[in-house]
């Protein structure tokens, strides 16, 4: 077993355990923090796969922005920040069935598709430059990229509109 594999296994165990605790811990703040650990674990996977850019983006977007806003929202809304209510709603078994089906599907897919054990193409030296060019290339992903930008802009304007206080009303 190489050192890389040991790192992978440790990260995998930590990530899975963190994900498990995210849904089982009764304390919402703790759940958010376990989620952060799970997201960090995913970032480590990206780094192990030589996808440095995605590893960093995973941390910037998911931990730096989304998770911190989650923690902030929980702090603002929960009195004493401790939730003592029931952890499951009445329809938890729907979620359980869906989760099981999804897991079975993914497992089946991995088993069914013959995945190559070695990379089929050489890893480009500067993947960010290629990614950037693909995003603005008319033959590449310029339209999805622009559509996503417009969507985000719409969300931004919507947020401003919702948060706007009219002084004369």
């Amino acid at each position, binding site marked *: 077993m190489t050192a890389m594999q040991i790192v992978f296994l440790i990260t995998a165990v930590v990530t899975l355990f963190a994900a498990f605790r995210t849904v089982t811990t009764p304390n919402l703040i703790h759940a958010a923090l376990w989620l952060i650990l799970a997201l960090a674990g995913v970032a480590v996977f990206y780094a192990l796969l030589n996808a440095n850019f995605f590893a960093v983006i995973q*941390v910037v977007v998911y931990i730096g922005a989304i998770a*911190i806003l989650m923690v902030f929202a929980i702090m603002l809304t929960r009195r004493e920040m401790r939730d003592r209510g029931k952890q499951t709603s009445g329809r938890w078994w729907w979620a359980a069935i869906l989760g099981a089906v999804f897991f079975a599907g993914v497992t089946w897919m991995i088993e069914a598709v013959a995945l190559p054990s070695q990379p089929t193409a050489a890893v480009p030296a500067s993947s960010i430059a290629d990614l950037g060019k693909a995003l603005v290339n008319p033959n590449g992903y310029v339209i999805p990229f622009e559509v996503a930008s417009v969507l985000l802009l719409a969300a931004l304007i919507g947020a401003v509109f919702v948060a706007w206080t009219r*002084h004369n009303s």
Partner: protein
Amino acid sequence: MGLLSHPITLVADWLRNLFLGWGLSQGLTTVLLYLIAAIVVASLANGWVIFLIWFERKIVGRMQDRIGPNRVGPYGLLQPFADLIKIITKEIIFPDKADKPLYVIAPLLMDAAIIAIWAVIPLVPMVGMDFNVAALYTIAVGAFATLGIILAGWSSNNKFALVSAFRTVAQMISYEVPTVLALLVPVLLAGTMSLQGIVEAQHVWYIVLAPLAFLIYFIASVAEVGRTPFDLLEAESEIVAGFHIEYSGMLFATFYVGDFLHAFTIGMLGAVLFLGGWRGPGAEAYPILGLIYLWIKAFVVYFVGVWVRGTLPRLRIDQMMNFCWKFLTPLALILLVEAAVVDRLLLGFTPWGRGLVHLAINVFIGALVIAYARAYDNRRKRERPLAAKPGQYPVARPPQPAAEAQSD
């Protein structure tokens, strides 16, 4: 390859051969070397703080017309060691109903996040991790420092600490925007996100090409560290000590060290991005000289930070937010567009020609911004005169719903 020119490579090779000689596998040796490097860098960084604490206390003391530490050792140099011994012997107190694991993790997380930035800083030519997204990585890791402060504020189970955590989120998330935008300017000029690449591309220091971006980066970084004039997260007169109000002993010391280390790390990043990093006469031939150059440059930036800290009073939270969102962010956006467009037009120019054109445009934009800010300030003063009418105190006006509605 002499000891003078490549000391780090030499030691690393020696260690590698030693481990391989013991019969360890290649992979394990690499992991061990990384571990040793990480421990050495972290220890050096934390040890360096001992000096920084003395320096800052001395300088701020002088600025405030005091002498500063002068009892222990020559010039008080041993004062931090005395403080260190004292604080190690102190008890770590856990508040009742504090969230114990988080309470302990918070300072460690903050300190670790700052040291993690050091992993990608090109200390000398050719040594250090050459990470192709290093510039972005420094921002990503900074998020963990923010998280550490939030956790400290929340887990202390103290209302002042919690208020401080709220302020931290507002301040750090906001000031991250101008920081990233200003950081993008050197990335754009160098055409790479690798810090080593950015240093190598600086035939002319980027402070010449992008002085305004450097200013924005510096101001926003000071805000991210949370130092005066942006120290709202630990405003003594309002929320006692903020997020570390309950901390004692080594846990408090970790926060304290983290603050100094963060300030110096910001200086180091500023030096790498805008002041040419290890560049200097003879640095390519003798890389160890590069380390000294980088250290001096980082120290200059750090000193300016201390200077600002010793000089300016604290801002109000609304002033701080307005300054970020209505001034720094739009200006940083303009500068980003300027850098992109102008640099494209100057493709064939020599480094100095390119630098001077950028400098001229930066000066022009700076003059415009100052003129606009003056005009805005004058207009606001005309519309809402602060001066009190006879018989009134010059304080904030009591709520006047009708008048408010018109003026807004």
